[in-house]
């Protein structure tokens, strides 16, 4: 067998084995957001930085929440419950701390022990020691952090570069569908993706025609 063929077969074996290892650490993720994330899912113990859209950040929580996990939204006084519910967040398992006060990261650390996905609007100044402590807690308890803003060393950074709405004209129509262009930056390198929202929920790219008639 020539070296090139050996390398190819080895690479094939590696790619076959990788998802198995990653799946242990995967959290349920909305199908429409899977291509954006390394490993195809939110990963336990990882943190993600989302810039530019709260809807996108909430969509990352939705599948884990509707699968029965507890989620938390910390530091967002303007939480839109109806939008979250239509994305698929279970409101009775979604803990809100609208005003966490001075010790935001301490609260996040305490709550990440029980909440599977934590959505956080980080304070302007974050000390590296605190970040390390939170990362250790996330790894220990198998939860994920979604930060809306800058966060040091995230697993992936999702930045909304463009947002388009459909359905609204000049004096007629209503906002209906939304398309976001998201620039991701992770260990796979930078990439550009499109996320479509229909009726308040993430549209599955595999099933473009089928829409939910009744919002969840």
């Amino acid at each position, binding site marked *: 067998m020539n070296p090139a063929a050996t390398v190819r077969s080895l690479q094939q074996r590696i790619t076959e084995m990788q998802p198995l290892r990653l799946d242990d650490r995967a959290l349920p993720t909305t199908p429409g957001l899977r291509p954006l994330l390394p490993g195809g899912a939110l990963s336990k113990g990882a943190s993600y930085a989302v810039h530019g859209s709260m809807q996108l950040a909430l969509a990352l929580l939705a599948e884990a929440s509707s699968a029965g996990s507890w989620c938390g939204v910390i530091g967002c006084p303007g939480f*839109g419950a*109806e939008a979250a519910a239509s994305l698929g967040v279970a*409101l009775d398992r979604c803990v809100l701390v609208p005003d966490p006060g001075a010790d935001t990261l301490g609260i996040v650390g305490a709550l990440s022990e029980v909440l599977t996905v934590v959505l956080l609007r980080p304070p302007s100044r974050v000390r590296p020691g605190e970040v390390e402590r939170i990362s250790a807690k996330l790894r220990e308890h198998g939860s994920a952090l979604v930060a809306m803003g800058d966060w040091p060393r995230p697993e992936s950074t999702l930045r909304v570069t463009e947002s388009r709405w459909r359905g609204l004209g000049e004096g007629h129509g209503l906002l209906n569908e939304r398309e976001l262009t998201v620039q991701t930056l992770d260990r796979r390198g930078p990439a550009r993706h499109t996320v479509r929202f229909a009726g308040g929920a993430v549209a599955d790219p595999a099933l473009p025609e089928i829409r939910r008639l009744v919002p969840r």
Partner: protein
Amino acid sequence: MNATVDRAAPGTAERIIVFWVPDWPVHAYLRELQGTAQEPPPSPAIALIANRRVAACSEAARAEGVRIGLRETEAQSRCPSLVVTPHDAEVDERRFAPVLAAIEQLIPGVEPIRAGLCTMRARGAARYYGGEQPAAEAVLKLAAQLGLPGARIGIADGRFAAEQAARAAATEPGLLAPSEGVRIVPAAAAAAFLSGLPVARAADPAFTEVLHGLGIRTLGALAALPEDAVRQRFGPQGVAAHRRASAAGPQHGSELRPRTPVRELSVELALEPPVAHAEQLAFACMTLAERFISGLAEERLVCTALRVELTDDIGVRHERVWAHPHRFTPADAVNRVRWQLAAMPTAPEGVEHGREGAGIGHVRLSPVHTDRAAAHEPGLWSTEPDTRVHHHLSRVQSRLGHTSVGTIALTGGRLLTDRQSFIPWSTDRPGRRGARGSAADPWPGSLPGPAPTLVFPAPLPAELVDDTGSAVGVDDEDLLTARPTQLRVNSTALSALVCGWSPLWPLREQWWRGSPPRFRLQLQLSDGDAWLLLHEGGRWHAEGRYD
């Protein structure tokens, strides 16, 4: 068959003590006057009137010829100095409750018959006090301490005989009267004692008349009839009277059904010196809360709502009822005390106004709603939130305050802020069965389509301007006055221009009261941003943002 059994063993009735206060309604009336600090009546002759007839009268009135059942005018004519007041049965019962509780301390197992009359078993008391007479003396001594010197004790086989003994004069045959107020019918002599009494004591008036017509005038004559014959002729009512007359015990079980002693479930704690800080108070209340919950647990109850009363050292009382979605644990109760003190208005530093007390001097916890503990056992499959989640959230809550952690529930309403309500953790959902209705109900004017992800708790002031820079408003035909080009929120102009907008849709509420209509507008900016605006009273507000 029953009749033969009863006749074969006529002495099966157990020894019963009857405690009787003659003219109890009058005593209760006097105590009520005393308790409410009113003047005592001018004359000792008192009659309580119900339905225009005398329901009870005092000894002085009886000496003047007033009798129970007499018409009011007749009673007044017999005794001109008679004080006449309406009879209140509720006062009788209420004023008798402390007497019952005091007797229960002396002899357990008291059955109240009516206000002023109660019974208890003689056997245990007689053994404890060394005889029936000393037991009776002990109860009378207690009655004298309670201010009831005229109380009577009757001891006999069976309740009916004991009650008749208590009412009997000391000179009646077949009865021992060892001291004033005590009447004892010796064991197995009850039938002999009763035989001389008129038949009206054991039967109601109609039945008494029938018996008189048959020539049966004493209980002895009634008891001499065979029970089978009485049953055939007079049915159950006749049998009951016959059994009372013959002093027979019950066919099975006991005549006496002692009440369950009432237990005080609320707990209190006096603090000296007063405590001003929530943490100190919470620490001081830990054992109190544990005592409170364990007291309920002993009664097989759980507490689902709790009243916390905090009293200042200057006597100002702060009271609040806290509900719990499941059941209170001691830690939950302590948290409520802490939150209540933390939420109380405190005087600012160096200012003499506000809460002037130095701190809390008295804490009282009382249950408002209780439930059977059996209804709150954890199910086989978890029905309550995960205990770990609850533990951590409660810790955060005790760090940040009661209203800082919670969940959101959707409610009915038109505006975005009306449609969601924040529920602090471990408090009951307010109005679960909805005064405000459900979010799924039709709400004319509410937002169709996707909802904004950012909902401003208080709407932000906004301005909408057209390309000439003048403000865009709403005209009489519910249309925009111009094409909007720019949006200003919080008096900052957004750089992106308006590129799309929805038709205005009105929210007409309470137009019959003259409330002006409000309008909503969706707005799309050229950079892909979208806003939901509300027009109210000539001004624009930003209600939410599609972030």
